[in-house]
Protein backbone atom coordinates (compact mmCIF):
# COMPACT_ATOMS: atom_id res chain seq x y z
CA UNK A 1 0.00 0.00 0.00
CA UNK A 2 2.72 2.44 0.98
CA UNK A 3 4.52 1.76 -2.32
CA UNK A 4 1.31 2.54 -4.11
CA UNK A 5 1.04 5.95 -2.42
CA UNK A 6 4.64 6.80 -3.28
CA UNK A 7 4.04 5.83 -6.88
CA UNK A 8 0.89 7.97 -6.97
CA UNK A 9 2.76 10.94 -5.55
CA UNK A 10 5.54 10.47 -8.07
CA UNK A 11 2.99 10.13 -10.83
CA UNK A 12 1.34 13.37 -9.74
CA UNK A 13 4.66 15.16 -9.60
CA UNK A 14 5.35 14.00 -13.12
CA UNK A 15 1.84 15.02 -14.15
CA UNK A 16 2.33 18.56 -12.84
CA UNK A 17 5.61 18.93 -14.74
CA UNK A 18 4.05 17.58 -17.89
CA UNK A 19 0.97 19.73 -17.44
CA UNK A 20 3.13 22.86 -17.26
CA UNK A 21 5.20 21.94 -20.33
CA UNK A 22 2.07 21.07 -22.31
CA UNK A 23 0.44 24.18 -20.84
CA UNK A 24 2.49 26.29 -23.25
CA UNK A 25 0.76 24.37 -26.05
CA UNK A 26 -2.65 24.85 -24.41
CA UNK A 27 -1.99 28.61 -24.35
CA UNK A 28 -1.29 28.44 -28.08
CA UNK A 29 -4.56 26.62 -28.69
CA UNK A 30 -6.33 29.15 -26.46
CA UNK A 31 -5.14 31.96 -28.76
CA UNK A 32 -6.39 30.34 -31.95
CA UNK A 33 -9.51 28.64 -30.63
CA UNK A 34 -10.78 31.15 -28.07
CA UNK A 35 -9.29 34.52 -28.94
CA UNK A 36 -9.27 34.18 -32.72
CA UNK A 37 -12.31 31.87 -32.77
CA UNK A 38 -10.52 29.62 -35.26
CA UNK A 39 -10.60 25.79 -34.96
CA UNK A 40 -6.97 25.34 -35.92
CA UNK A 41 -5.96 21.77 -36.73
CA UNK A 42 -2.42 22.87 -37.59
CA UNK A 43 -1.28 22.35 -34.01
CA UNK A 44 -1.20 18.54 -34.29
CA UNK A 45 1.46 19.05 -36.96
CA UNK A 46 3.24 22.07 -35.52
CA UNK A 47 3.64 20.38 -32.13
CA UNK A 48 5.50 17.43 -33.68
CA UNK A 49 7.31 19.89 -35.97
CA UNK A 50 8.68 21.78 -32.96
CA UNK A 51 9.71 18.50 -31.34
CA UNK A 52 11.34 17.14 -34.49
CA UNK A 53 13.25 20.36 -35.16
CA UNK A 54 14.47 20.70 -31.58
CA UNK A 55 15.57 17.06 -31.35
CA UNK A 56 17.30 17.05 -34.74
CA UNK A 57 19.17 20.30 -34.07
CA UNK A 58 20.33 18.96 -30.71
CA UNK A 59 21.31 15.45 -31.81
CA UNK A 60 22.41 15.78 -35.43
CA UNK A 61 23.76 19.32 -35.45
CA UNK A 62 24.97 19.45 -31.86
CA UNK A 63 23.15 22.71 -31.15
CA UNK A 64 22.64 24.12 -27.69
CA UNK A 65 19.22 22.70 -26.72
CA UNK A 66 17.95 26.11 -25.62
CA UNK A 67 18.79 27.60 -29.01
CA UNK A 68 16.98 24.69 -30.65
CA UNK A 69 13.83 25.76 -28.80
CA UNK A 70 13.96 29.17 -30.49
CA UNK A 71 14.04 27.44 -33.89
CA UNK A 72 11.24 25.11 -32.76
CA UNK A 73 9.16 28.20 -31.96
CA UNK A 74 9.96 29.75 -35.33
CA UNK A 75 9.05 26.47 -37.06
CA UNK A 76 5.65 26.45 -35.37
CA UNK A 77 5.18 30.09 -36.39
CA UNK A 78 5.96 29.24 -40.00
CA UNK A 79 3.38 26.42 -39.92
CA UNK A 80 0.80 28.86 -38.54
CA UNK A 81 1.64 31.35 -41.27
CA UNK A 82 1.05 28.70 -43.94
CA UNK A 83 -2.37 27.86 -42.51
CA UNK A 84 -3.19 31.57 -42.27
CA UNK A 85 -2.21 32.19 -45.88
CA UNK A 86 -4.18 29.16 -47.09
CA UNK A 87 -7.25 30.47 -45.31
CA UNK A 88 -7.04 34.19 -46.05
CA UNK A 89 -5.43 34.26 -49.51
CA UNK A 90 -6.62 30.96 -51.03
CA UNK A 91 -10.00 31.22 -49.23
CA UNK A 92 -9.80 27.62 -48.02
CA UNK A 93 -12.15 26.98 -45.06
CA UNK A 94 -10.53 27.35 -41.64
CA UNK A 95 -10.59 23.71 -40.57
CA UNK A 96 -9.40 22.43 -43.94
CA UNK A 97 -6.51 24.92 -44.05
CA UNK A 98 -5.28 23.54 -40.75
CA UNK A 99 -5.72 19.94 -41.83
CA UNK A 100 -3.75 20.58 -45.05
CA UNK A 101 -0.84 22.06 -43.13
CA UNK A 102 -1.03 19.32 -40.52
CA UNK A 103 -0.96 16.47 -43.04
CA UNK A 104 1.88 18.11 -44.97
CA UNK A 105 3.86 18.52 -41.78
CA UNK A 106 3.73 14.77 -41.22
CA UNK A 107 5.98 14.26 -44.26
CA UNK A 108 8.08 17.29 -43.39
CA UNK A 109 8.68 15.94 -39.89
CA UNK A 110 9.84 12.60 -41.31
CA UNK A 111 12.16 14.54 -43.61
CA UNK A 112 13.51 16.63 -40.75
CA UNK A 113 14.30 13.61 -38.60
CA UNK A 114 15.07 11.21 -41.45
CA UNK A 115 13.19 8.56 -39.48
CA UNK A 116 10.10 8.16 -37.34
CA UNK A 117 11.75 9.17 -34.08
CA UNK A 118 14.87 10.78 -32.72
CA UNK A 119 16.05 9.84 -29.23
CA UNK A 120 18.11 12.46 -27.40
CA UNK A 121 20.71 9.94 -26.31
CA UNK A 122 24.24 10.93 -25.42
CA UNK A 123 23.57 14.65 -25.85
CA UNK A 124 22.73 17.41 -23.44
CA UNK A 125 19.03 18.24 -23.20
CA UNK A 126 17.73 21.41 -21.53
CA UNK A 127 17.26 19.29 -18.39
CA UNK A 128 20.82 17.92 -18.23
CA UNK A 129 22.18 21.39 -19.11
CA UNK A 130 20.44 22.82 -16.08
CA UNK A 131 21.43 19.93 -13.81
CA UNK A 132 25.05 20.35 -14.90
CA UNK A 133 25.24 23.91 -13.60
CA UNK A 134 23.49 23.11 -10.31
CA UNK A 135 25.58 22.39 -7.19
CA UNK A 136 25.92 18.80 -6.00
CA UNK A 137 23.80 19.49 -2.91
CA UNK A 138 20.78 20.14 -5.12
CA UNK A 139 21.37 17.53 -7.82
CA UNK A 140 21.49 14.80 -5.19
CA UNK A 141 17.81 15.39 -4.43
CA UNK A 142 15.66 12.39 -5.22
CA UNK A 143 14.05 12.55 -8.65
CA UNK A 144 15.88 15.76 -9.58
CA UNK A 145 14.92 15.41 -13.25
CA UNK A 146 11.24 15.81 -12.46
CA UNK A 147 11.93 18.86 -10.28
CA UNK A 148 14.00 20.53 -12.98
CA UNK A 149 11.29 19.76 -15.54
CA UNK A 150 8.76 21.38 -13.23
CA UNK A 151 11.01 24.41 -12.83
CA UNK A 152 11.42 24.72 -16.61
CA UNK A 153 7.64 24.41 -17.01
CA UNK A 154 6.98 27.14 -14.46
CA UNK A 155 9.51 29.52 -16.04
CA UNK A 156 8.17 29.00 -19.56
CA UNK A 157 4.49 29.25 -18.67
CA UNK A 158 4.98 32.38 -16.56
CA UNK A 159 7.06 34.01 -19.29
CA UNK A 160 4.47 33.04 -21.91
CA UNK A 161 1.56 34.36 -19.85
CA UNK A 162 3.44 37.61 -19.24
CA UNK A 163 4.21 38.13 -22.91
CA UNK A 164 0.68 37.24 -24.02
CA UNK A 165 -0.84 39.53 -21.39
CA UNK A 166 1.26 42.40 -22.67
CA UNK A 167 0.74 41.63 -26.35
CA UNK A 168 -3.04 41.27 -26.26
CA UNK A 169 -3.24 44.62 -24.49
CA UNK A 170 -1.46 46.42 -27.33
CA UNK A 171 -3.17 47.99 -30.35
CA UNK A 172 -2.39 45.02 -32.58
CA UNK A 173 -3.33 42.54 -29.83
CA UNK A 174 -6.69 44.24 -29.22
CA UNK A 175 -7.36 44.18 -32.95
CA UNK A 176 -6.68 40.42 -33.03
CA UNK A 177 -9.11 39.94 -30.12
CA UNK A 178 -11.71 42.03 -31.92
CA UNK A 179 -11.18 40.00 -35.11
CA UNK A 180 -12.14 36.84 -33.21
CA UNK A 181 -15.22 38.68 -32.03
CA UNK A 182 -16.50 40.56 -35.04
CA UNK A 183 -14.63 40.68 -38.33
CA UNK A 184 -17.06 43.10 -39.96
CA UNK A 185 -16.46 45.64 -37.24
CA UNK A 186 -12.68 45.33 -37.45
CA UNK A 187 -12.71 45.96 -41.19
CA UNK A 188 -15.10 48.87 -40.77
CA UNK A 189 -12.65 50.33 -38.26
CA UNK A 190 -9.71 49.95 -40.63
CA UNK A 191 -8.20 46.72 -39.33
CA UNK A 192 -6.81 44.23 -41.84
CA UNK A 193 -8.54 41.03 -40.66
CA UNK A 194 -6.42 38.81 -42.93
CA UNK A 195 -3.23 40.04 -41.31
CA UNK A 196 -4.77 39.74 -37.84
CA UNK A 197 -5.80 36.12 -38.44
CA UNK A 198 -2.38 35.21 -39.80
CA UNK A 199 -0.73 36.91 -36.82
CA UNK A 200 -2.94 35.04 -34.36
CA UNK A 201 -2.19 31.71 -36.04
CA UNK A 202 1.53 32.50 -36.10
CA UNK A 203 1.62 33.30 -32.40
CA UNK A 204 -0.57 30.34 -31.41
CA UNK A 205 1.41 27.82 -33.43
CA UNK A 206 4.69 29.36 -32.32
CA UNK A 207 3.73 28.45 -28.76
CA UNK A 208 2.61 24.98 -29.88
CA UNK A 209 5.98 24.46 -31.62
CA UNK A 210 7.83 25.68 -28.53
CA UNK A 211 5.83 23.28 -26.38
CA UNK A 212 6.63 20.43 -28.80
CA UNK A 213 10.32 21.26 -28.45
CA UNK A 214 10.06 21.36 -24.65
CA UNK A 215 8.27 18.01 -24.59
CA UNK A 216 10.93 16.41 -26.82
CA UNK A 217 13.67 17.83 -24.60
CA UNK A 218 12.09 16.69 -21.34
CA UNK A 219 10.87 13.25 -22.41
CA UNK A 220 14.17 12.57 -24.21
CA UNK A 221 12.91 11.91 -27.72
CA UNK A 222 10.88 13.31 -30.58
CA UNK A 223 8.41 11.15 -32.44
CA UNK A 224 6.54 11.78 -35.66
CA UNK A 225 3.29 10.84 -33.93
CA UNK A 226 3.82 12.95 -30.80
CA UNK A 227 1.41 15.64 -32.02
CA UNK A 228 -1.61 13.40 -32.53
CA UNK A 229 -4.56 14.80 -30.62
CA UNK A 230 -2.75 17.99 -29.60
CA UNK A 231 -5.74 20.19 -30.33
CA UNK A 232 -8.05 18.01 -28.24
CA UNK A 233 -5.64 18.03 -25.31
CA UNK A 234 -5.40 21.80 -25.66
CA UNK A 235 -9.19 22.09 -25.67
CA UNK A 236 -9.43 19.75 -22.69
CA UNK A 237 -7.08 22.03 -20.76
CA UNK A 238 -9.11 25.09 -21.72
CA UNK A 239 -12.48 23.60 -20.75
CA UNK A 240 -11.17 22.16 -17.47
CA UNK A 241 -9.73 25.57 -16.61
CA UNK A 242 -13.02 27.25 -17.55
CA UNK A 243 -15.07 24.75 -15.55
CA UNK A 244 -12.97 25.50 -12.50
CA UNK A 245 -12.51 29.23 -12.74
CA UNK A 246 -15.55 30.32 -14.72
CA UNK A 247 -15.41 32.76 -17.60
CA UNK A 248 -15.79 36.03 -15.83
CA UNK A 249 -12.22 36.61 -14.79
CA UNK A 250 -9.74 39.03 -16.30
CA UNK A 251 -7.47 38.04 -19.16
CA UNK A 252 -4.46 37.19 -16.99
CA UNK A 253 -6.58 34.82 -14.88
CA UNK A 254 -7.97 33.19 -18.00
CA UNK A 255 -4.46 32.50 -19.26
CA UNK A 256 -3.52 31.08 -15.88
CA UNK A 257 -6.65 28.95 -15.78
CA UNK A 258 -5.62 27.38 -19.12
CA UNK A 259 -2.27 26.28 -17.63
CA UNK A 260 -3.94 25.03 -14.45
CA UNK A 261 -6.43 23.18 -16.66
CA UNK A 262 -3.51 21.58 -18.47
CA UNK A 263 -1.96 20.48 -15.15
CA UNK A 264 -5.30 19.09 -13.94
CA UNK A 265 -5.74 17.23 -17.19
CA UNK A 266 -2.41 15.47 -16.63
CA UNK A 267 -3.32 14.70 -13.02
CA UNK A 268 -6.64 13.18 -14.13
CA UNK A 269 -4.77 11.07 -16.69
CA UNK A 270 -2.20 10.01 -14.09
CA UNK A 271 -4.89 9.03 -11.62
CA UNK A 272 -6.93 6.95 -14.08
CA UNK A 273 -3.74 5.25 -15.25
CA UNK A 274 -3.01 4.37 -11.63
CA UNK A 275 -6.57 3.07 -11.36
CA UNK A 276 -5.79 0.59 -14.11
CA UNK A 277 -6.85 2.20 -17.40
CA UNK A 278 -4.41 1.71 -20.29
CA UNK A 279 -2.46 4.46 -22.06
CA UNK A 280 -4.23 3.38 -25.24
CA UNK A 281 -7.56 4.44 -23.72
CA UNK A 282 -6.43 8.00 -23.00
CA UNK A 283 -7.42 9.44 -26.37
CA UNK A 284 -10.97 8.13 -25.93
CA UNK A 285 -11.10 9.49 -22.41
CA UNK A 286 -9.90 12.89 -23.64
CA UNK A 287 -12.41 12.87 -26.46
CA UNK A 288 -15.27 12.13 -24.08
CA UNK A 289 -14.04 14.71 -21.59
CA UNK A 290 -13.95 17.51 -24.17
CA UNK A 291 -17.30 16.48 -25.66
CA UNK A 292 -18.97 16.60 -22.26
CA UNK A 293 -17.35 19.91 -21.37
CA UNK A 294 -18.38 21.50 -24.66
CA UNK A 295 -21.94 20.19 -24.59
CA UNK A 296 -22.80 20.91 -20.95
CA UNK A 297 -23.18 24.69 -21.49
CA UNK A 298 -25.47 24.01 -24.46
CA UNK A 299 -27.65 21.59 -22.47
CA UNK A 300 -27.79 24.08 -19.61
CA UNK A 301 -28.88 26.77 -22.03
CA UNK A 302 -31.62 24.59 -23.48
CA UNK A 303 -32.82 23.67 -20.01
CA UNK A 304 -32.88 27.31 -18.95
CA UNK A 305 -34.86 28.14 -22.12
CA UNK A 306 -37.44 25.47 -21.40
CA UNK A 307 -37.74 26.67 -17.83
CA UNK A 308 -38.24 30.22 -19.04
CA UNK A 309 -40.86 29.11 -21.56
CA UNK A 310 -42.74 27.22 -18.88
CA UNK A 311 -42.77 30.26 -16.60
CA UNK A 312 -44.49 32.26 -19.35
CA UNK A 313 -47.33 29.77 -19.62
Amino acid sequence: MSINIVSIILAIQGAISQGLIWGVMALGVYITFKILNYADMTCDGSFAFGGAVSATLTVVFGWNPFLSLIIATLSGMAAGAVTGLLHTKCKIPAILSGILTMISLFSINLRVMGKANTPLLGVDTIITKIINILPESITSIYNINAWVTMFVGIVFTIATIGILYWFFGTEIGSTIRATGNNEDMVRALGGNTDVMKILGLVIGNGLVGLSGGLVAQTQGYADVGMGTGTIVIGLASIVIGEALFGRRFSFAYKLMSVVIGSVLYRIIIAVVLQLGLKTDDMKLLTGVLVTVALSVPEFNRQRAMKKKMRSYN
Partner: protein
Amino acid sequence: MLSISNVYKTFNPGTINEKRALNGMNLELRPTDFVTIIGGNGAGKSTILNMIAGVYPIDSGSIVLDGIDISTKPEHERAKFLGRVFQDPMRGTAADMEIEENLALAYRRGRKRGLSWGITKAEKHNYVEALQTLDLGLETRLTSKVGLLSGGQRQALTLLMATLQKPKLLLLDEHTAALDPKTASKVLELTEKIINENQLTALMVTHNMKDAIRLGNRLIMMHEGRIIYDISGEEKKNLHVKDLLEKFEMASGGEFANDRMMLA
Protein backbone atom coordinates in the same frame (compact mmCIF):
# COMPACT_ATOMS: atom_id res chain seq x y z
CA MET B 1 -17.10 65.34 -52.07
CA LEU B 2 -18.33 61.93 -53.15
CA SER B 3 -18.67 61.16 -56.80
CA ILE B 4 -20.13 57.88 -57.95
CA SER B 5 -20.14 57.50 -61.69
CA ASN B 6 -21.64 54.82 -63.82
CA VAL B 7 -21.28 52.05 -61.27
CA TYR B 8 -22.49 48.58 -62.24
CA LYS B 9 -22.67 45.54 -60.03
CA THR B 10 -24.12 42.11 -60.76
CA PHE B 11 -24.14 39.42 -58.09
CA ASN B 12 -23.69 35.75 -59.07
CA PRO B 13 -23.27 36.51 -62.78
CA GLY B 14 -24.02 33.65 -65.13
CA THR B 15 -25.94 31.67 -62.53
CA ILE B 16 -29.61 31.15 -61.87
CA ASN B 17 -29.28 33.58 -58.94
CA GLU B 18 -27.95 36.37 -61.13
CA LYS B 19 -28.98 39.72 -59.69
CA ARG B 20 -28.18 43.07 -61.22
CA ALA B 21 -27.91 45.19 -58.07
CA LEU B 22 -26.51 48.41 -59.49
CA ASN B 23 -27.34 49.51 -62.99
CA GLY B 24 -25.32 52.55 -63.97
CA MET B 25 -25.56 54.37 -60.66
CA ASN B 26 -24.54 58.04 -60.57
CA LEU B 27 -24.43 60.24 -57.50
CA GLU B 28 -22.68 63.47 -56.55
CA LEU B 29 -22.54 64.61 -52.94
CA ARG B 30 -21.60 68.06 -51.73
CA PRO B 31 -19.84 68.53 -48.38
CA THR B 32 -22.24 68.37 -45.39
CA ASP B 33 -24.96 66.82 -47.56
CA PHE B 34 -27.17 64.59 -45.42
CA VAL B 35 -28.91 62.34 -47.91
CA THR B 36 -31.64 59.86 -47.12
CA ILE B 37 -32.05 56.92 -49.50
CA ILE B 38 -35.35 55.08 -49.96
CA GLY B 39 -36.51 52.40 -52.34
CA GLY B 40 -38.10 48.98 -52.47
CA ASN B 41 -36.43 45.73 -51.54
CA GLY B 42 -33.62 44.92 -53.95
CA ALA B 43 -33.43 48.48 -55.27
CA GLY B 44 -29.71 48.60 -54.50
CA LYS B 45 -29.79 50.88 -51.45
CA SER B 46 -27.62 48.73 -49.22
CA THR B 47 -25.54 47.62 -52.19
CA ILE B 48 -24.43 51.15 -52.98
CA LEU B 49 -23.36 51.67 -49.36
CA ASN B 50 -21.46 48.39 -49.44
CA MET B 51 -19.82 49.39 -52.72
CA ILE B 52 -18.67 52.68 -51.23
CA ALA B 53 -17.33 50.85 -48.18
CA GLY B 54 -15.62 48.22 -50.32
CA VAL B 55 -17.39 45.17 -48.95
CA TYR B 56 -17.63 43.85 -52.52
CA PRO B 57 -15.73 45.11 -55.57
CA ILE B 58 -17.65 47.02 -58.24
CA ASP B 59 -17.89 45.59 -61.77
CA SER B 60 -17.29 48.91 -63.53
CA GLY B 61 -17.50 52.64 -63.00
CA SER B 62 -15.71 54.67 -60.35
CA ILE B 63 -16.13 55.90 -56.80
CA VAL B 64 -14.14 59.01 -55.93
CA LEU B 65 -14.15 60.37 -52.39
CA ASP B 66 -12.72 63.83 -51.79
CA GLY B 67 -10.50 63.56 -54.86
CA ILE B 68 -9.24 60.08 -54.05
CA ASP B 69 -10.30 57.20 -56.29
CA ILE B 70 -11.26 54.48 -53.82
CA SER B 71 -12.87 52.16 -56.40
CA THR B 72 -10.30 49.41 -55.99
CA LYS B 73 -9.04 50.00 -52.45
CA PRO B 74 -9.68 47.19 -49.97
CA GLU B 75 -12.34 47.65 -47.30
CA HIS B 76 -9.95 48.26 -44.40
CA GLU B 77 -8.14 51.02 -46.30
CA ARG B 78 -11.36 52.84 -47.19
CA ALA B 79 -12.32 52.64 -43.52
CA LYS B 80 -9.91 55.52 -42.95
CA PHE B 81 -12.43 57.86 -44.62
CA LEU B 82 -15.71 56.24 -43.62
CA GLY B 83 -17.85 55.87 -40.56
CA ARG B 84 -20.32 53.00 -40.79
CA VAL B 85 -23.35 51.84 -38.83
CA PHE B 86 -25.04 48.59 -39.85
CA GLN B 87 -28.63 47.44 -39.63
CA ASP B 88 -27.71 44.61 -37.24
CA PRO B 89 -26.70 46.11 -33.87
CA MET B 90 -24.45 43.06 -33.34
CA ARG B 91 -22.30 43.89 -36.36
CA GLY B 92 -20.95 47.23 -35.24
CA THR B 93 -19.42 46.28 -31.92
CA ALA B 94 -17.34 43.49 -30.37
CA ALA B 95 -19.56 41.80 -27.79
CA ASP B 96 -16.86 40.17 -25.67
CA MET B 97 -14.86 43.36 -25.33
CA GLU B 98 -15.39 46.25 -22.95
CA ILE B 99 -17.10 49.50 -23.96
CA GLU B 100 -13.85 51.41 -23.63
CA GLU B 101 -11.97 48.78 -25.64
CA ASN B 102 -14.51 49.11 -28.44
CA LEU B 103 -14.12 52.88 -28.38
CA ALA B 104 -10.33 52.55 -28.38
CA LEU B 105 -10.52 50.40 -31.50
CA ALA B 106 -12.75 52.98 -33.16
CA TYR B 107 -10.44 55.81 -32.07
CA ARG B 108 -7.65 54.11 -34.06
CA ARG B 109 -9.65 53.95 -37.27
CA GLY B 110 -7.41 55.05 -40.13
CA ARG B 111 -4.29 55.03 -37.99
CA LYS B 112 -1.42 52.62 -37.99
CA ARG B 113 -1.80 50.07 -35.19
CA GLY B 114 1.41 49.20 -33.42
CA LEU B 115 2.66 47.72 -30.18
CA SER B 116 1.83 50.66 -27.95
CA TRP B 117 -0.84 50.11 -25.33
CA GLY B 118 -4.29 49.51 -26.83
CA ILE B 119 -5.94 52.10 -24.62
CA THR B 120 -4.37 54.98 -22.68
CA LYS B 121 -5.48 56.77 -19.52
CA ALA B 122 -5.95 60.07 -21.34
CA GLU B 123 -8.28 58.42 -23.85
CA LYS B 124 -10.51 56.97 -21.15
CA HIS B 125 -11.24 60.48 -19.97
CA ASN B 126 -12.30 61.48 -23.49
CA TYR B 127 -14.51 58.43 -23.76
CA VAL B 128 -16.40 59.37 -20.61
CA GLU B 129 -17.16 62.76 -22.16
CA ALA B 130 -18.15 61.24 -25.48
CA LEU B 131 -20.46 58.71 -23.83
CA GLN B 132 -22.13 61.47 -21.82
CA THR B 133 -23.37 63.01 -25.05
CA LEU B 134 -25.37 59.82 -25.69
CA ASP B 135 -27.22 60.35 -22.43
CA LEU B 136 -27.68 56.62 -21.89
CA GLY B 137 -25.66 56.31 -18.69
CA LEU B 138 -22.93 54.36 -20.45
CA GLU B 139 -20.25 56.71 -19.13
CA THR B 140 -20.32 54.88 -15.80
CA ARG B 141 -19.98 51.47 -17.44
CA LEU B 142 -16.71 51.87 -19.35
CA THR B 143 -15.47 48.41 -18.43
CA SER B 144 -18.76 46.58 -19.05
CA LYS B 145 -18.77 44.04 -21.85
CA VAL B 146 -20.67 45.39 -24.86
CA GLY B 147 -22.57 42.10 -25.08
CA LEU B 148 -24.46 43.17 -21.94
CA LEU B 149 -25.95 46.22 -23.66
CA SER B 150 -29.34 46.36 -25.37
CA GLY B 151 -29.65 46.62 -29.14
CA GLY B 152 -30.40 50.33 -28.95
CA GLN B 153 -27.49 51.00 -26.64
CA ARG B 154 -25.20 49.06 -28.93
CA GLN B 155 -26.43 50.98 -31.96
CA ALA B 156 -25.90 54.31 -30.19
CA LEU B 157 -22.41 53.16 -29.25
CA THR B 158 -21.70 52.12 -32.85
CA LEU B 159 -22.82 55.56 -33.99
CA LEU B 160 -20.44 57.17 -31.52
CA MET B 161 -17.65 54.84 -32.62
CA ALA B 162 -18.27 55.64 -36.29
CA THR B 163 -17.85 59.36 -35.61
CA LEU B 164 -15.16 59.31 -32.89
CA GLN B 165 -12.65 60.01 -35.64
CA LYS B 166 -14.48 62.45 -37.88
CA PRO B 167 -15.24 60.52 -41.10
CA LYS B 168 -15.30 62.15 -44.52
CA LEU B 169 -18.54 60.26 -45.08
CA LEU B 170 -20.93 58.55 -42.69
CA LEU B 171 -22.79 55.50 -44.02
CA LEU B 172 -25.96 54.49 -42.18
CA ASP B 173 -27.53 51.30 -43.47
CA GLU B 174 -31.05 51.08 -42.02
CA HIS B 175 -29.41 51.48 -38.66
CA THR B 176 -32.69 51.81 -36.76
CA ALA B 177 -34.64 49.07 -38.57
CA ALA B 178 -33.90 46.41 -35.96
CA LEU B 179 -34.89 48.60 -32.99
CA ASP B 180 -38.23 49.13 -31.31
CA PRO B 181 -39.95 52.41 -32.29
CA LYS B 182 -39.03 54.31 -29.15
CA THR B 183 -35.38 53.28 -29.26
CA ALA B 184 -35.31 53.89 -33.00
CA SER B 185 -36.44 57.49 -32.59
CA LYS B 186 -33.88 58.03 -29.85
CA VAL B 187 -31.10 56.70 -32.06
CA LEU B 188 -32.33 58.84 -34.95
CA GLU B 189 -32.30 61.89 -32.71
CA LEU B 190 -28.70 61.11 -31.79
CA THR B 191 -27.85 60.59 -35.45
CA GLU B 192 -29.19 64.01 -36.36
CA LYS B 193 -27.40 65.64 -33.46
CA ILE B 194 -24.04 64.04 -34.22
CA ILE B 195 -24.28 64.84 -37.93
CA ASN B 196 -25.21 68.48 -37.29
CA GLU B 197 -22.67 69.10 -34.55
CA ASN B 198 -19.79 67.60 -36.52
CA GLN B 199 -20.92 68.97 -39.89
CA LEU B 200 -20.73 65.47 -41.40
CA THR B 201 -21.57 64.32 -44.88
CA ALA B 202 -23.89 61.34 -44.58
CA LEU B 203 -25.83 58.74 -46.54
CA MET B 204 -28.70 57.13 -44.68
CA VAL B 205 -30.70 54.21 -46.04
CA THR B 206 -34.14 53.92 -44.48
CA HIS B 207 -37.46 52.18 -45.03
CA ASN B 208 -39.32 54.83 -43.14
CA MET B 209 -40.55 57.51 -45.56
CA LYS B 210 -41.45 59.96 -42.82
CA ASP B 211 -37.88 59.80 -41.50
CA ALA B 212 -36.55 60.10 -45.03
CA ILE B 213 -38.52 63.31 -45.54
CA ARG B 214 -37.95 64.78 -42.10
CA LEU B 215 -34.21 64.16 -41.87
CA GLY B 216 -31.43 65.52 -44.04
CA ASN B 217 -31.30 68.08 -46.80
CA ARG B 218 -31.70 65.75 -49.73
CA LEU B 219 -33.66 62.60 -50.56
CA ILE B 220 -33.03 60.06 -53.27
CA MET B 221 -35.22 57.18 -54.36
CA MET B 222 -33.66 54.12 -55.93
CA HIS B 223 -35.21 51.53 -58.18
CA GLU B 224 -33.59 48.62 -59.96
CA GLY B 225 -30.07 49.75 -59.28
CA ARG B 226 -30.27 53.43 -60.18
CA ILE B 227 -31.57 56.71 -58.83
CA ILE B 228 -35.05 57.54 -60.10
CA TYR B 229 -35.82 60.55 -57.96
CA ASP B 230 -33.54 63.14 -56.40
CA ILE B 231 -34.96 66.04 -54.44
CA SER B 232 -33.45 68.57 -52.06
CA GLY B 233 -33.92 71.88 -50.28
CA GLU B 234 -37.33 73.52 -49.99
CA GLU B 235 -38.91 71.11 -52.39
CA LYS B 236 -37.97 68.20 -50.15
CA LYS B 237 -39.35 69.90 -47.06
CA ASN B 238 -42.76 70.15 -48.66
CA LEU B 239 -42.78 66.53 -49.65
CA HIS B 240 -45.38 64.08 -48.32
CA VAL B 241 -45.36 60.31 -48.01
CA LYS B 242 -48.22 60.27 -50.53
CA ASP B 243 -46.02 62.00 -53.14
CA LEU B 244 -43.27 59.50 -52.62
CA LEU B 245 -45.63 56.57 -53.01
CA GLU B 246 -46.96 58.03 -56.24
CA LYS B 247 -43.46 58.56 -57.52
CA PHE B 248 -42.59 55.06 -56.61
CA GLU B 249 -45.61 53.60 -58.31
CA MET B 250 -44.92 55.56 -61.43
CA ALA B 251 -41.32 54.44 -61.58
CA SER B 252 -42.03 50.82 -60.93
CA GLY B 253 -44.77 50.80 -63.53
CA GLY B 254 -47.74 50.18 -61.28
CA GLU B 255 -46.00 47.60 -59.19
CA PHE B 256 -47.02 48.59 -55.69
CA ALA B 257 -44.70 49.65 -52.91
CA ASN B 258 -43.74 46.84 -50.58
CA ASP B 259 -45.46 46.32 -47.26
CA ARG B 260 -42.81 47.91 -45.15
CA MET B 261 -43.02 51.12 -47.17
CA MET B 262 -46.79 51.12 -46.97
CA LEU B 263 -46.72 50.88 -43.21
CA ALA B 264 -44.24 53.69 -42.84
